């Protein structure tokens, strides 16, 4: 019996050992990573709505398409913010500021993929086609995929352009209906991409024009390979790309909606870079030596807008009093974890229109109480603070911010009720003007300061739903319009400083913070740079 047991334990140990060997073969050592195919994996936050940023202003769509698949006529220099040549090698403006002539680059190849083989290189026809798609309502492609071009409509680019003509194969002339100095900046935004007219023609002949937005063709550094919802977007290198690019052969967007999972994947090396680290994750990233966290002041502003169409918020003195009641620095500490700078105006310091001497409202509850009582707002007055239900760079936690402000307002005798709805309902009700005040903000799409002044506070922006204060001032509108008729930055800055002064007198909104933008990536990745003017760029990104 004893011998039997001895034999059995030998038998069992043989089983265990062989099982172990099998296991070890399965878990081959992790040092095989250099054997992986050459490519960059970016953990992104969601599914793109399409692969055409003309159709959608959401950051997810822009990130995945604008700078990967497409090029623009002009680009922003990421460091200086200047407008630099893109597909247009040079441009000239007529003396009256109405006619722009673009000289196009030659021999720029469109993507050649499984579904399209270009027969010609990029030329004026592609520019005319791309512009006319959103400009001309009778264009065969205008209504394909919905016929709405949110960014272009919101800045009025479609109405600004009177005509666009092909002069010769590599020259295009655009005539405006009125001079506007932000025109070139708008052409450099993520949304003014150039599509292939030849591809469009081919699709139309095949009866499937809508594929232009889901199986895209462009001239950008990466060409589309495949997309699986909730899983990944796969790109291959566009080897004939006209600019310098890294030798990265593949670019993959690994769609990971959970931010903690994105961070975990970044730690294990399953991602090379991740989208939108949350403020609470920043310290974790800083502590890991294999991870790098870049930060840059963002072109954004978070603010508290008062509904100036409702009494008593139509009184500038009341609005000033409310702003005085809030301790901005405490909010910055608690909500942004110090990853933002206090905002004195709606213009962030990285913009050339920034006024370094603009006054920041101080925290003064006594003065606030006095002003409120003087203007007939009695102890126990009730108002609503609407707090965004979503996380945004300019306001990572509007709910919590509203709760803090509730306490400050109680000290000056005001009962604040916090209101929040699901995001699309929230915006719909804001557009109806049902709020007393709202915590919201704005991220710029281009480096031009007009992109802050116009959408946030002009009269016309009340209807297009970006003027949350519903504030309308003829004086302000005149200043903003006048600034655009000048092309010289100093001339324009004069009008903008006047506008900023007007805002701080009238206080239609209380600017709170300009938040930093973050980019987290692994230390073996090079070439990632934060693009303050929009979507992420992978052209120069590589890893050994």
């Amino acid at each position: 019996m004893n011998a039997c047991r001895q034999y059995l334990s030998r038998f069992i140990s043989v089983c265990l050992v062989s099982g172990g060997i099998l296991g070890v073969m399965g878990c081959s050592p992790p040092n095989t990573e250099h054997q992986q195919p050459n490519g960059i994996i970016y953990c992104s936050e969601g599914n793109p709505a399409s692969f055409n940023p003309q159709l959608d202003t959401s950051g997810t769509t822009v990130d995945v398409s604008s700078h990967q698949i497409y090029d623009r006529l002009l680009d922003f220099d990421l460091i200086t913010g200047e407008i630099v040549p893109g597909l247009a090698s040079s441009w000239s403006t007529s003396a009256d500021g109405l006619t722009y002539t673009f000289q196009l680059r030659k021999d720029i190849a469109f993507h050649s993929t499984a579904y399209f083989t270009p027969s010609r290189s990029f030329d004026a026809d592609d520019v005319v086609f791309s512009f006319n798609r959103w400009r001309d309502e009778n264009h065969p492609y205008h209504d394909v995929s919905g016929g709405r071009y949110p960014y272009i409509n919101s800045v009025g680019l479609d109405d600004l352009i009177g005509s666009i003509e092909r002069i010769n194969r590599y020259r295009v002339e655009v005539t405006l209906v009125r001079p506007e100095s932000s025109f070139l900046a708008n052409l450099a935004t993520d949304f003014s991409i150039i599509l292939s007219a030849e591809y469009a023609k081919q699709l139309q002949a095949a009866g499937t024009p809508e594929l232009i937005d889901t199986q895209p063709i462009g001239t950008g550094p990466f060409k589309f390979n495949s997309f699986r919802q909730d899983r990944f977007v796969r790109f291959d290198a566009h080897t004939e790309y006209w600019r310098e690019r890294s030798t990265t052969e593949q670019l993959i967007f690994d769609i990971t909606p959970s931010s903690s999972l994105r961070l975990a994947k970044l730690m294990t090396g399953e991602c090379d870079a991740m989208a939108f680290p949350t403020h609470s994750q920043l310290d974790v990233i800083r502590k890991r030596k294999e991870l790098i966290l870049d930060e840059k002041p963002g072109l954004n502003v978070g603010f508290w807008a008062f509904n100036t169409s409702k009494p008593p918020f139509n009184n500038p003195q009341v609005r000033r009093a409310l702003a005085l009641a809030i301790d901005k620095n405490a909010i910055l500490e608690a909500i942004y974890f110090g990853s933002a700078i206090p905002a004195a105006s709606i213009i962030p310091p990285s913009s050339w229109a920034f006024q370094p001497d603009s006054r920041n409202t101080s925290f003064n509850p006594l003065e606030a109480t006095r002003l409120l009582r003087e203007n007939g707002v009695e102890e126990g007055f009730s108002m609503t603070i609407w707090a965004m239900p979503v996380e945004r760079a300019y306001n990572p936690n509007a709910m919590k911010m509203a709760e803090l402000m509730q306490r400050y307002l109680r000290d000056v005798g005001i009962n604040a009720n916090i209101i929040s709805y699901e995001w699309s309902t929230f915006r719909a009700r804001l557009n109806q003007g049902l709020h007393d005040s709202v915590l919201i903000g704005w991220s710029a799409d281009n480096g031009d300061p007009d992109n802050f002044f116009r959408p946030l506070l002009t009269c016309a922006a009340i209807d297009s739903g970006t003027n949350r204060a519903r504030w309308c001032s003829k004086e302000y509108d005149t200043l903003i319009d006048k600034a655009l008729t000048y092309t010289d930055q100093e001339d324009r800055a004069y009008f903008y400083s006047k506008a900023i002064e007007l805002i701080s007198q009238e206080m239609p909104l209380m600017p709170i913070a300009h938040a930093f933008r973050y980019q987290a990536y692994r230390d073996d990745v090079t070439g990632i740079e934060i693009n303050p003017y929009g979507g992420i760029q992978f052209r120069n990104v590589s890893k050994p």
Partner: protein
Amino acid sequence: MLRIMLRHISLLILTLFILSFFSFSLAYLFPGDPLVNLTGIRDSSEQTYALLAQQYAMNDSLFSQYWHYVNNLFSGNWGLSFSSGLPLAEEISRSLAASVELSAYALIISFVIGLPLGFLSGLRHHKFIDYSLLSASVIGYSIPVFWAALIAILLFSVQLGWFPLSGRISLLYDIPYDTGFILIDILLSDVPDKEFAFQDALRHLVLPSVSIAIVTSTIVLRITRRSVVEVMNSEYIQAAYARGLSPRQVFVRHGIKNALIPILPLLVMQFTTLLTNAMIVETIFSWPGIGNGLIQAIYQRDFPAIRAGMLAVSALVLTFTITSDMVIQIFDPARRRPEDATS
């Protein structure tokens, strides 16, 4: 034998009929237009809508509608997913294959761990090693699968960095879809660096399959242990010793076989438990299987995907259970019902 087969097949057909009817009625129970819930095609033009209504006989009696629904199911027309707009038959067969693959490897691991330990425990009945294995198995059995998976991720992925924590293979490898089983697909494909892709896929498999296998291993261990104890105490083993066989001969000739035969069916039946656990673990490891798919579908209120996914999973489990039961009864007469006996 014919009788057994007939009985099982009719049972299978009847239950599948009930299941398909249930899934059909879901189209009416979910909010919205039943036709849209069946086809997954929203915002269709009037023309296409009329065409679809005809295809699904929406204007006829419920019975006729059901009949057309089943016909569509069999011709592979399962409708489209709301969220991706892709045909569900393809989506589901892809994700089902991923789940089955994961469960199959987990089952193998459970056998590799559970069987030898079960033998050891059974042979050392009432000894220290038996008690410690038994208590380990109780602990393993009581650990919630999702918790084990999360701990495994924290330890082996995030802290030690040994294994990846999501997916089936690094996205850098573009493995063409063929059978749906990633390891087989890699071997069939002609991607460069095949062996590295294979290794990478194996590394992705380790954590999910092991965390599922923990529970099943403990079940296998306990079933095996009980059977071994029973067999080693039986008279024919004593008789074998009495005939002068060596312990090795006794164990190899009489022990192993007699201990395994009665429990094999029980072990095979663990596959369904495994599949259920796999569906939970998939969501944690972002494994692109049916469990993950169903959870996403529920989040996104993708009614056609919920309907078809539930039907596919339940039909698979049902077919597997009834078929294995049938095979067992055919090959093991001892398990047949004493139907010929008088009661």
